[in-house]
């Protein structure tokens, strides 16, 4: 009896409850609108279906959001990821076009490696501005956000570069073990990040820096190095996302590649329950958040609304999530809902307390 109640309570208090519930509701809406929504069929040795498409389309946002999660956990933000993605696509595509044998595997590997190195350098540049010069993250990354698309256009010389390399396009449209390669890449990065942050002390150190950089430095945490690493990692993730997007169309358009992906990624992170005030993060939440955004993008045409109106729904999601997370809004709603039980306090009041502390910290 007591064990079941604690289990129920544990589920109810689990931070992933709301994001997963939202995702389930979204899927249900789809199934009601079109009962065949969840059908998955086997064709040419791959799985096909809406669900597989959603997994594949979630890859870029998930990649960017993973890097963003760690950045946000240090109480930062990275606005430049869209621009970095565009630069990654531009660098890779121009390398492939400029190579001797355009369709060779080595060409693709070299181009991808080269692009990712560039992205790590760009991420490290953001880290330099934030950690060494002490500029606010939002402003430091704004610089690259403004200049990045210009740089990307300078790389492609303002043209839409089209590439013809089967190995490169496999990044977006290939399948491994019946699943889309892009999704598997995102999953691999997720697993790598999870092991690195949750099986070592790194995750705790990142959270410590997010809660109080100065205190963690005095406690012997190398806050500067951690901040630097986190931004470089975010750059790397953004670069991978840019490559997947470029591979999807086999071309790079410096103006539109990864446009507003930073906002989608931040949305994914916020949906996943990571506080924008830093100090705690949830990679699993980010995973659910990215899948949620991809599902939302698929839902809107599925229930017969033009896909451009996606933005309207995203706005509603942003506001809803923020209100759910805002301690002040919770307080307002709680008072309205349950004005009577002051005695039954401990369970409901104990839960928002860490959230309040996290936001205020």
């Amino acid at each position, binding site marked *: 009896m007591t064990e079941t109640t604690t289990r129920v309570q544990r589920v109810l208090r689990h931070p992933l409850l709301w994001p997963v519930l939202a995702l389930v509701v979204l899927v249900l809406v789809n199934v009601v609108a079109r009962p065949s929504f969840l059908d998955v069929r086997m064709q040419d040795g791959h799985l096909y279906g809406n669900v597989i498409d959603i997994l594949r389309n979630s890859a870029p946002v998930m990649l960017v959001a993973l890097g963003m999660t760690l950045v946000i956990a240090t109480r930062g933000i990275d606005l430049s990821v869209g621009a970095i993605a565009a630069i990654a696509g531009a660098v890779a595509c121009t390398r492939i076009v400029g190579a001797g044998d355009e369709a060779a595997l080595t060409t693709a590997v070299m181009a991808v490696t080269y692009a990712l190195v560039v992205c790590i350098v760009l991420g490290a540049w953001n880290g330099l501005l934030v950690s060494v010069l002490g500029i606010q993250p939002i402003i430091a990354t*704004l610089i690259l956000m403004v200049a990045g698309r210009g740089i990307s256009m*300078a790389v492609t010389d303002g043209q839409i570069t089209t590439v013809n390399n089967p190995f490169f396009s496999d990044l977006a449209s290939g399948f491994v073990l019946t699943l889309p390669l892009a999704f598997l890449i995102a999953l691999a990065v997720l697993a790598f990040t999870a092991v690195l942050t949750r099986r070592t002390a790194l995750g705790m150190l990142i959270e410590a820096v997010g809660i109080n950089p100065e205190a963690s430095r005095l406690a012997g945490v190398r806050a500067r190095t951690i901040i630097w690493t986190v931004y470089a990692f975010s750059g790397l993730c953004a670069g991978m996302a840019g490559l997947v997007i470029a591979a999807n169309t086999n071309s790079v358009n410096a103006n539109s590649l990864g446009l507003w992906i930073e906002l989608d990624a931040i949305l994914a992170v916020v949906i996943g329950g990571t506080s924008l005030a830093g100090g705690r993060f949830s990679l699993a939440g980010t995973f659910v958040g990215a899948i949620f955004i991809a599902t939302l993008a698929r839902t809107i045409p599925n229930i017969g609304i033009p896909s451009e109106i996606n933005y309207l729904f995203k706005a509603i999601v942003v506001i809803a999530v923020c209100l759910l997370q805002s301690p002040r809004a919770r307080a307002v709603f709680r008072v309205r809902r349950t004005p009577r039980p002051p005695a039954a306090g401990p369970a409901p009041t104990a839960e928002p307390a860490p959230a309040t502390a996290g936001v205020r910290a």
Partner: protein
Amino acid sequence: MSTATVSPASTWDRVRTFTPPGRYLPLIATLALFIGLFGVGGMRYDGLSDPQVLISLLIDNAFLIVLGVGMTFVILTGGIDLSVGSVVALSTMIAAKTLQMGWSPYLSIAAVLLTGTVLGLLMGLLIHYFDIQPFIATLAGLFLARGLTYLISVESISINDPTFTSLAFKTVYLGDYYVRWTAIIALATVAVAAFVLARTRFGRTVYAIGGNESSAMLMGLRVAFTKVGVYVISGFCAALAGLLFALYILSGNSLHAIGMELDAIAAVVIGGTLLTGGRGYVVGSLLGVLVLGIIKTLISFDGTLSSYWIRIITGVLLLAFVVVQRFATRRRS
């Protein structure tokens, strides 16, 4: 000070020893940058030294000036408004659609201004009363405005209402030179905003909140009213900028003004306003817009440089100003 000296200082002495107050230094730096760019351009390209080029700068960037004014208010309180680009797009779309439906142009203008103001009000309320970070609340505004634009029409709608187009091309002649009404509206906005910030209780509260919100609250200033107010002003300015943009481009399109919020933020920063809030002037933002404008003009005069250099140079300028600001504030503290 002059009472202590035996002989009253000569005019030259006063000019020689004059040092501008520290708070004006960023403004002077931006002005010097603008004059320098204009001077270099004037020496290299013949046509650039024509005063009409300067006036055209105002005409071509009228919407950005108004946007910068609204953004200055927000940034002075330590906030940020990412939604302005989308609100501009929404404004052009509302204007185009209502005119297409046969509304009176004045009614259409009123509808645009009201929409922008209400959006700003909503964001301000979210930010102040629910403690949502300005960045994320205005992000919601960005999506909302862009989504509403698409909801009205996915395709571009051109504006050919006679009153509206005559308003767009109405010019005032100053001797040999001409100014469009849009530029005059933009300058009037700057003047009103400068007066409000410098001379009214509301304006001083804006600076106080940017300096330290808790202190402002403890001093009994009207923090809630002012904090919501700056987003209302920003929303109104974005709508007004949208109208000027519609007059400039004579169409409504959901793809208008993508990334324009970045230009506005860059102009404000280049104009010397501290992004952490509390310091800065609207006139600086005007100068910031003019600096961005002159770079655009120089690149188009040059002809060999591609347009994407504008973004790279903007980024470099932004970097320079942010780093200098950072060191200036660090030394003081």
